[in-house]
C-alpha cells in the first residue's frame, strides 16, 4: 500500500511536469534567459505547486503520523551555511547549462533518446561522487579527532 501510494504520487508528479511544459529543456532555458525572449511559465509551475503546499503543510505538521502510519520526515535543519549556498550555486550552473533539473530529467528517460539518459547517468555519477567525498571527509575528521594519522 505504501509503495502504491508513492508510485501514484510519482506518476502524478511526472504528469504535472509534462503538462506544465517543464519536460522540455528549451522551455526551462526560456525562463532562465532573462536577457532574451523571456518565457515566465516556470514561475507559474512553481507558484502553482507552492500554493498547494502552503495549504497542505500546516495540516501535515499537525499530524502525529502519516495516514499510512509512518513517521513524518519533515526537514528540521535551519542553518544557512556555505555548503547550502555553494551546492545550490553548483546545481544552478548545471541547470542553466542543460535546462534539466532532476525531476524533468527522470521524467524524460522513458521517451527514449540518448540525451536525457546521458544527463541522468552523469547526475547519478555526481551523486555517487558526493557520497564518496563525504566518506573521505568523515574519515579525515575521525582520524583528526582520535589523533591517528
Amino acid at each position, binding site marked *: 500500500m505504501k509503495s502504491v501510494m508513492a508510485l501514484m504520487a510519482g506518476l502524478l508528479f511526472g504528469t504535472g511536469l509534462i503538462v506544465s511544459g517543464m519536460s522540455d529543456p528549451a522551455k526551462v532555458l526560456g525562463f532562465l534567459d532573462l536577457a532574451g525572449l523571456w518565457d515566465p511559465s516556470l514561475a507559474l509551475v512553481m507558484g502553482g505547486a*507552492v500554493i498547494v503546499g502552503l495549504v*497542505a503543510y500546516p495540516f501535515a505538521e499537525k499530524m502525529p503520523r502519516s495516514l*499510512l502510519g509512518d513517521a513524518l520526515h519533515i526537514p528540521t535543519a535551519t542553518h544557512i551555511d556555505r555548503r547550502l549556498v555553494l551546492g545550490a550555486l553548483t546545481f544552478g550552473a548545471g541547470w542553466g547549462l542543460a535546462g534539466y533539473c532532476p525531476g524533468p530529467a527522470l521524467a524524460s528517460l522513458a521517451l527514449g533518446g540518448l540525451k536525457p539518459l546521458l544527463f541522468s547517468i552523469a547526475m547519478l555519477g555526481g551523486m555517487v561522487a558526493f557520497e564518496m567525498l563525504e566518506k573521505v571527509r568523515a574519515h579525515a575528521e575521525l582520524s583528526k579527532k582520535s589523533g591517528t594519522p
Partner: protein
Amino acid sequence: MTIDWIHFTPWASLAGGLMVGVAAALLLFFSGRIAGISGIMGGLLEPSKGDISWRLAFLLGLVASPLVFSVIYPLPPVHIEASYPTLIVAGLLVGIGTRYGSGCTSGHGVCGLSRRSPRSLVATAAFMAAGFGTVYIVRHLIS
C-alpha cells in the same frame, strides 16, 4: 525584458504546477515524506532498511509518467539544445550540487518554500541566480 508570448503557457503551466503540488502533498500525507527528487535519489545510494521501497516506487512512477501520459494524450515535443559533452558536465554539476545543497527545484523550490523555510528560500535564490547567470553567459557572452 521582453516576454516570449508565443511560448508562454500560463494555464498549462499553472495546472501542471498544481498537479506537482498535489503529488507532493500526497507523498507527505500518505508516506510522511518530502517530494524532493534529488533527495529521494540520493537516499538510495546510502540505503537503510525499510527506506528503499517507497523511494523506488516514487521514482518508478516519475519515470513511467510519460508512458502513461502518451496513452491518454500526445506528448508535447521537446527540444534539447545542449550537446552531449555539455549534458555530461551539466549532469555532474546537478548531481553534486543538489546533494551538497540538500535539494533541488522540488525539494527546496517547491516543498521548502511551501514550508516557509528560510534555508530553502536562500537555496532557491542561489540556484535561480546561478541558472540566470549561466544562461546569460552561454547565450549572450560566449555565443
